[in-house]
């Protein structure tokens, strides 16, 4: 697991921080995360992960779901990408993982 300075257990159930909203950008046809005075453009994988950050799914389940979705890409590579993204989101306070 890449070290990004915060821990995210496999059984944690990440959800978007209260100040963050996902929006489809119809102008440039992509997803964006919006929060006060900022926006973050998401690639397709990141958007698929964010949609699962509802507080219901565990990190392990999200990884599994994405690995299925992106087969036949190697699951290890998908897992690495998902975890790196989630860690970065937690570090930036955009995703919460308490509980």
């Amino acid at each position: 697991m890449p070290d990004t300075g915060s821990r995210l257990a496999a059984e944690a159930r990440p959800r978007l921080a209260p100040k963050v909203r996902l929006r489809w950008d119809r102008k440039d046809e992509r997803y964006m995360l919006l929060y006060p005075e900022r926006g973050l453009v998401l690639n397709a994988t990141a958007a698929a992960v964010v949609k699962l950050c509802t507080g219901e799914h565990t990190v392990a389940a999200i990884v599994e779901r994405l690995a299925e979705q992106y087969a036949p890409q190697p699951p290890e590579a998908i897992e690495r990408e998902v975890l790196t993204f989630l860690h970065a989101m937690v570090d930036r306070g955009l995703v919460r993982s308490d509980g």
Partner: protein
Amino acid sequence: MTGDAPRPYTLVAELTYRCPLRCVYCSNPLDYADHRDALSTADWLRVFREAEALGVVQLNLTGGEPLIRDDLETLVEGARALDLYTNLITSGIPCTRERLTRLRACGLDNVQVSVQDVRAPESDRIAGLRSFERKLEVARLVKELGLPLTINVVLHRENLDRVAEIIALGESLHADRLELANTQYLGWALPNRRALLPTREQLDRAREVARAARERLRGSMELLFVIPDYYSEFPKACMDGWARRFIVVSPDGLALPCHAAHTLPGLSFDRVQDRSLEEIWQHSDAFNAYRGEAWMPEPCRSCDRRAADFGGCRCQAFHLTGNAAATDPVCSLAPGHGLIEAARGESSAPGPADLEYRTARSSTSA
């Protein structure tokens, strides 16, 4: 947010310049009283629709004090229907639980409450109104209602040494975001510069406190520390470049590339009552005046940083040098940089300076 073609992402809706506070660094123009509220509810809703169609995803409802508009609920509801991320930027005065509850129900995304300092006497002195305790009540109410809270504190020489206490206040209010923004010396802050500009030593100490706190609070409270450009080597990318990412609409309906653009001479601004926002964004003389690089003088024109800072702030260039097309004098390479060095020199002069409070005066007598 990437890409180089101009696309507005943020609409700053200055719903009114009226405000019960009289902050000595207010960014509204000195002649704010000449710009009366001229847009109806329907006008604003149309502006929101036109903005969204142009690509806007963020809406800042500000002023003045936006809560003074009694149609704020309708405006928030309309914005939410367009899926705009709606941020209410308020002094917290006047605000009630009932009002905030209604705004939440209308789909408000975030509330930003300004606090002027960590202690009532100092905060009230800067605001020119007894308001500190009420502001804290409103901030607590925001959290109690489950709305995300940003606390905004403008920094200057009188409160910069209390940054640690300010951060502690933000934590005690459970702010989701704390914005520590050093004063920009435009609007009312410019005549008050002598009283407000900190020393470099003050700034360096505060910056270090904020840096350490940002690490400690990572993942829980977002901490933003906006450096005053007077102590930067290079200018800031004002508005992310002229007419590139932002549209500001003033209470009287002027469409502006930044909130102080109407203080620049020689530009004609269109009103949203007369032309569509799309036409204005594409074709307005004022929006095109400093867009891109063709207008740039040396040393900007051949500078490697021109795509990073866009030559800095046009309003600062005008208000300090008299020429809106000059390189922002904040830049250490600018011909006018001596003006900034002189102001920094004044900041180490001893003794308090008088404060000039925001008050209605007309442009003709200013």
